[in-house]
């Protein structure tokens, strides 16, 4: 077997509330970059986002949460996607095997903290939200809603967080420390991140155009996605259907700047190189690269250099960024794009890199701009974050 079995997946993003809805949007060019509705911000007119068009009340009702709950939006999105993944994997007894949950988030419950910050001292009914700020609270709420008891932890390495959660999960299965692990990430939109990226001047005032010469930055998004990974012993015993496998993973640090990537993409190159090593695959075996492709001038330059270095100018596989559909969903992005990579394998398609017109002047890299059908055996997915954090995952068709 060439990697760790993925037996279920779940997702909620701006382009759909289920895996199926996300797929339908991806193959029909249904983008969801819109004006923000759920958060009141002075930037709403200028910066469009990939927003899930459900209010917190609607999400809470859907989850049948009691009125005294203290769920952040991040936690609610997380529970929705994780529950889908568990259901999709056909799991009925969550603690039947040694099971863990590795989640990822960057904002955690910041959406509640920023809403109530000064009001906590005025209204004692709000105090319950103080404890939902930290990242771990989000993961605990997901574990509780799943009824999971076991190893539960959270990774936060900015925009590569969920990719790292998937990597850790794969290692936990491989080493035999767990039989089953639910891995992924969740991040809701928040004023905090909207303003943060705004001050860094990397928000686009239009629609993000990954790998285009005129790209002006990213659109933020919100999402949650989870995968279920299971040991081969469990797969065999339960006669499980395997969606795909996590065959490679790598993490490296760019060690260049707290928020910017190096021009030559050292960290990205090292992460991809490591993933190939783990997967025991050669670059020419990759059929599709789901790039990080945030459409900031800096990311695409750095990632493009690394891709050219690892694949060679002549042999670069079909690649695309799916962020024009969803926006950049920060800590969840690695899991969202893992689901898309698996969909690419299952359906033998390359999703289009929308909004691309003019190749970057620095090099001749042309993303796949239309939906393309072809056999897909291996997909490489990149996720890079602040702090020079670079992660690569390789997904492979299960034999």
């Amino acid at each position, binding site marked *: 077997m060439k990697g760790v079995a993925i037996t279920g997946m779940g997702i909620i993003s701006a382009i759909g509330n289920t895996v199926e809805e996300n797929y339908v949007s991806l193959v029909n060019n249904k983008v969801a970059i819109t004006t923000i509705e759920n958060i009141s911000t002075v930037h709403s007119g200028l910066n469009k986002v990939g927003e899930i068009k459900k209010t917190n009340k609607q999400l809470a009702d859907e989850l049948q949460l009691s009125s005294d709950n203290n769920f952040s939006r991040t936690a609610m999105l997380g529970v929705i996607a994780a529950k889908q993944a568990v259901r999709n994997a056909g799991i009925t007894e969550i603690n039947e095997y040694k099971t863990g949950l590795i989640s990822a988030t960057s904002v955690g419950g910041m959406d509640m903290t920023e809403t109530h910050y000064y009001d906590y001292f005025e209204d004692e009914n709000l105090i319950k939200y103080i404890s939902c700020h930290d990242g771990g609270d989000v993961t605990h709420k997901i574990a509780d809603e799943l009824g999971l008891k076991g190893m539960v932890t959270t990774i936060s390495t900015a925009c590569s967080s969920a990719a790292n959660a998937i990597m850790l999960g794969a290692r936990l299965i491989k*080493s035999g420390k767990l039989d089953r692990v639910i891995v992924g990430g969740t991040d809701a939109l928040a004023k905090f991140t909207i*303003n943060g990226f705004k001050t860094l001047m990397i928000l686009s005032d239009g629609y993000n155009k990954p790998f285009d010469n005129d790209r002006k930055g990213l659109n933020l998004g919100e999402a949650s996605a989870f995968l279920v990974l299971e040991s081969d012993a469990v797969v065999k015993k339960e006669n499980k259907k395997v969606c795909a496998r996590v065959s490679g993973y790598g993490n490296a640090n760019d060690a260049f700047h707290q928020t910017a990537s190096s021009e030559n993409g050292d960290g990205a190159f090292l992460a991809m190189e490591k993933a190939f090593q783990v997967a025991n695959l050669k670059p020419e075996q990759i059929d599709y690269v789901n790039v990080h492709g945030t459409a900031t001038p800096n990311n695409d330059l750095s990632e493009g250099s690394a891709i050219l270095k690892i694949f060679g100018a002549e042999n670069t596989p079909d690649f695309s960024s799916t962020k024009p559909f969803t926006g950049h969903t920060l800590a969840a992005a690695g899991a969202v794009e893992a689901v898309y990579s698996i969909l690419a394998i299952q359906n033998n398609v390359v999703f289009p890199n929308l909004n691309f017109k003019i190749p970057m002047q620095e090099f001749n890299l042309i993303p796949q701009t239309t939906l393309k059908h072809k056999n897909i055996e291996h997909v490489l997915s990149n996720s890079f974050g602040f702090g020079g954090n670079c992660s690569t995952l390789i997904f492979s068709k299960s034999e």
Partner: protein
Amino acid sequence: MRKAYINGVGCISAQETLDTIFLEKAEINEKDTIFAIKAPVYKDFISPVAIRRMAKGVKNGIVASAIAMKEANATTIDAIITGTGLGCIEDSEKFLKAIIDNKEEFLTPTSFIQSTHNTVGAQIALGLQCKAYNLTYVNGSVSFESALFDAKMKIEEQEANSILIGGIDETAEFTMSLFKLAGFIKKENESPYTFLESTTKGAVYGEGATFFVLENEKKDTTYAEVLDIEIINKLGVNEVETKIINFLKANELQISDIDAVVLGYNGDVEFDDYYKTLSENAFTKTPQIYYKHLSGEYNTASAFGLWVGAKIIKTQQILQIISVNNLKKEAYKTILLYNQYKGIDHSFTLISKC
């Protein structure tokens, strides 16, 4: 299976722990509800220009990691793994306040840039020019144990030989006022704040940065071998003993093999039963240690606990100031650490002399 040894430590805490043998200079503080760290001389480690830009947690992390690396004589680091409950909360606060107070106008990016949870690990990597594996865990009071767990696994996988791990948390004014409001921190004017005979709710809070160099080889500087770590999200008071017995059994040990047990007592009458039940039952004959009366409670205080455990093995002594039950032993070979916070995020860590 490859073994993992603690070969160097660096600890910044509310006590003098940076260039001491153990806790010989420790002082008990029963009057404050929040302990501040004894700050090191930062300029001995970081350039003055950089110091001004850096948040407290980042500075402490850089200094503590440098000291741990120096002690272990580690020149090449194959992985940097950190744990933090609240991350760079001072900068998060600063940026959030600016957003609210200035109605999303006139903001500068500095505090946003520094507010990311992985800032400490990233800044250490930047300083060392270390392009290796770099991860940050943020799961309440198992944030540090997650880092330790990952590091041990990396060594077992033969993916790394020398790993820097650390637990970092900082206090920040507004967040502490929220924690007081929510009752996480003890009320003012109820001193003395004792830990073992506490009758009040909430904890005495603190902050700190504790780093370790974990390596696959034993050295002259080796403190202890890390035998095993287990993380469990939720347990009832009465489930802990069974879990400990099973954990020890998996390591071919039983309770009578444990020479000292390090418990996370934080003086919160609501949750210290998790420890008290063990103190009064399974471990009555075992020397019991507590430490949060010296460090304060914070999400990665258990890293200070591991520092205490490692120091006991190295110095072969239990100081009176950390003893729960006044029991002593001839030799301290195997030590168990148990921690939880508010009934969740339980961890068992097993270390041994080698």
